[in-house]
C-alpha cells in the first residue's frame, strides 16, 4: 500500500513567508500525480517536505499509511530525481546507480544485478563506466532516473526533471516517462511549471498558486471544469479569455453592450471562454460581444486573432481562433459569439467558478 498523503501540511518561514498553506492531498497507489503551478506556488516545497529535506511547520505526511514526519530522508524509502540531476561527479555511472543500494547493505551480487537491469531498461548500459562529466544532458537525465529506479522505492519524486533539456529531447523523454510508468507503476509525484507537461503526463493534476491548492483533478476536469480564474487562465495555451462584465436582470452586459440572456444570478462576473470555443463573426450582430481587431498571427493550421473588447473601465485583449486564411484589417469591427456550452462564469471578486448548473445553455435575447 504505497499511498502518499499530505494532511493539512503547512510550511511557514521565519519572517512570515508561508510557502505552503494547509495542503490536503492523497496520491493513490501507483498514481502519477503532477504538482503544477508558477514559481513560488509551493510545489517544490511540498516535494521537499515529502522527501524529508525540509520539516513542515504543521501537518502530517504519510507514506504507505505510516506517518513519516520524523523520519530522515534515507528512512522513507523514496527516491528523487533532481532538476540538475545531482549525480555524484567523482563516481562512475555504475557507482552512482549502486550508491543507494550499497548504503542499505545490499549484497554485491544483488547490487550488480539490479544496476545492470536498470541500465538495460534505460538504455545506458554502455555508459556504466563513464563519469557524469563525460555524459550529455539527456544521458545524465537517464542516469538520474536510473539512480531512482534501481532502489525500487515506495514513491518516486521528480523535481522538474525535464526543464534542463532542449525542446526536442524534452518531448522524447516525456514519452519515455509515460512508457516507463506503464511498465513500472510506482506512486509518483512530479513537479513542473510547464502546463503542457502536466496535462500530458499526469493521471491527476494538482494546480497550485501562492502556497494553496487551486484545484485537483484529471486533465479533463482541469481543462473543462476549472474551479477558478487562476486555473482557467493557467492551463491551456493560449490561455482562456477572461472578460469582466455584469449581469443585470438576467442579461449579460459587457461594457456598454447588452449581450444576451444568461441563466446566472445578477451581479458582477468574469466571463471565461477559450480561444478555440469563441466564434468570430466578421460583422457584429445582436447577441455578440463587439470587438476591434488588433492583429493577426498566422499559425499555419489556423490563425490567432487578437482583438480589443470594451469593458467597464477600459479595454481587455481577447484571443480567438479563426480558420487559416482569415484576413481582417487592423481596427475592423467584429463580433464574438459566446458558445452555448463552453462559456464559464466566475465570481468577479473571488474568481471562483459559479455553480455549474448555470453553465447550461445560453438563451438569446
Amino acid at each position, binding site marked *: 500500500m504505497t499511498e502518499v498523503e499530505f494532511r493539512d501540511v503547512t510550511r511557514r518561514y521565519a519572517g512570515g513567508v508561508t510557502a505552503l498553506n494547509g495542503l490536503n492531498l492523497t496520491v493513490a497507489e501507483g498514481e502519477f500525480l503532477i504538482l503544477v503551478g508558477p514559481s513560488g506556488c509551493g510545489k517544490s516545497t511540498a516535494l521537499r517536505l515529502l522527501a524529508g529535506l525540509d520539516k513542515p511547520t504543521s501537518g502530517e505526511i504519510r507514506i504507505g499509511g505510516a506517518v513519516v514526519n*520524523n523520519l530522515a530522508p534515507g528512512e522513507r524509502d523514496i527516491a528523487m530525481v533532481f532538476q540538475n540531476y545531482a549525480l555524484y561527479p567523482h563516481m562512475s555511472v555504475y557507482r552512482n546507480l549502486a550508491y543507494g543500494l550499497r548504503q542499505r547493505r545490499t549484497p554485491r551480487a544483488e547490487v550488480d544485478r539490479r544496476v545492470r537491469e536498470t541500465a538495460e531498461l534505460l538504455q545506458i548500459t554502455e555508459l556504466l563506466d563513464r563519469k557524469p562529466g563525460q555524459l550529455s544532458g539527456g544521458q545524465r537525465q537517464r542516469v538520474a532516473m536510473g539512480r531512482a529506479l534501481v532502489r525500487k522505492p515506495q514513491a518516486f519524486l521528480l523535481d522538474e526533471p525535464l526543464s534542463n533539456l532542449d525542446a526536442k529531447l524534452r518531448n522524447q523523454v516525456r514519452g519515455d516517462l509515460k512508457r516507463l510508468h506503464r511498465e513500472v507503476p510506482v506512486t509518483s509525484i512530479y513537479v513542473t511549471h510547464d502546463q503542457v507537461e502536466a496535462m500530458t503526463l499526469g493521471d491527476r493534476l494538482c494546480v497550485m498558486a501562492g502556497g494553496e491548492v487551486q484545484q485537483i483533478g484529471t486533465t479533463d476536469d482541469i481543462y473543462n471544469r476549472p474551479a477558478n480564474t487562476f486555473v482557467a487562465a493557467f492551463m491551456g495555451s493560449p490561455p482562456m479569455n477572461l472578460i469582466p462584465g455584469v449581469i443585470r436582470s438576467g442579461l449579460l452586459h459587457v461594457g456598454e453592450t447588452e449581450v444576451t440572456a444568461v441563466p446566472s444570478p445578477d451581479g458582477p462576473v468574469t466571463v471565461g471562454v477559450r480561444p478555440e470555443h469563441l466564434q468570430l463573426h466578421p460583422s457584429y450582430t445582436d447577441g455578440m460581444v463587439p470587438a476591434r481587431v488588433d492583429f493577426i498571427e498566422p499559425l499555419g493550421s489556423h490563425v490567432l486573432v487578437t482583438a480589443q473588447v470594451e469593458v467597464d473601465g477600459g479595454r481587455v485583449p481577447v484571443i480567438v481562433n479563426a480558420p487559416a486564411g482569415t484576413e481582417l484589417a487592423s481596427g475592423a469591427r467584429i463580433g464574438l459569439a459566446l458558445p452555448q456550452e463552453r462559456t464559464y462564469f466566475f465570481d468577479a471578486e473571488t474568481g471562483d467558478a459559479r455553480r455549474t448548473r448555470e453553465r447550461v445553455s445560453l438563451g438569446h435575447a
Partner: protein
Amino acid sequence: MTTPQLSTLTAEPEAQEPPAPISERRSRLRLPFSPWHLVLIPLSFLLVVPLLWMLVTSLETEGEANRFPPVLIPESPRFENYSEAWAAAPFGHFFLNSVMVTLVVLVSNLIVCSLAGYAFARVRFLGRGALFVTLMATLMVPFQVTMIPVFLIVKWFGDNVWAGLGIDHIGALMLPNLATAFGIFFLRQFFQTVPVELEEAARVDGTSRLGVLFKIVLPLSLPALSTLAALTVLTSWNDFLWPLIVITSHDQMTVPLGLSYFQGAHRVKWPLLMAANVMSLLPMLLVFVGAQRYFVQSVANTGLKG
C-alpha cells in the same frame, strides 16, 4: 557574456532562510538555539585565545604579569602601558613609515598592474605570450633567491640615483615591490571577464585604448581591485624579512621591524611588550575585519583555481 563577478563567498549567511539542514532533522531536543553553538563557541574561543591573552596582559602591571598561576583579570586595567610603550620606542615613526610604504606600494601596484593586466588581457601585441610567461615565471622563484641580489641592486640605486631609495631608507622598501607578477596575473584574469562588447562600443565612439581602460574597464573592476588592494596592504604592512635586511636605523623602521626591535630592548617587560604588540596589530586587524569579504574572496579564488 556574464557580468564579471568574483565568487560571492562572504561570511554572512543568505538573507532568505534556507531549509533546515539534514543534520537537524532528528533532534527531538528542543533547545532555544542550535546545538552547534556548543561546538562553535569553544572552538572560536580557542582560536582567539592567544589574541585575548595578549590583550589581557597588555593591561596588567608588571607585578601581575609575573605571577604564577597567571592573573586572568587584572585588578584595574593599566592603560598607561600603552602610553609608555609608545614613548619607549619611536612608534610614531614606525607607523608613519609603514603607512607611507604601504600606500606607495598599493597605488603603484594598482596602476602598474592594471596597465599591464589590461594589455595582456586585451591588446594583441607581438611577444605578448612570451613576455607573460616570463613574468609569471618569477612567481615560482622564492624570495630567498632574489633577496641578496635585490639588496645589491637597491644599494646601487641608493649610491647612484637617490639616497632615499637605498639601504636604510624606506624607499628601498618600496622599490622592489612596486609591481608584482601576482597582481598582473590576478587583474588580467578579471579583465578577461569584462564583456568585450563594452570596450568595443567605446572604441567605436572614439575612446582611446587608455580611455577605455580608465573609463570602462576599471570602474567595472572595483571588486577585483579592492581584493588586490586588500591583499597588497596586508602583505606590505606585515612584511618582515626584507625590512630586516635593509633597515637598521630606528627612524626608518616599519611596524613589524620596529616591534621586533622593541622586543629586543624590552624582552621581559611583558605587559609593555604586549601593549606594543596590540598597537602594532590593531591597524591590520581593523583593515581585515573591515575588508574581510575581499580577503576571503581572494584566497578562495586562488585556492579553487590553483
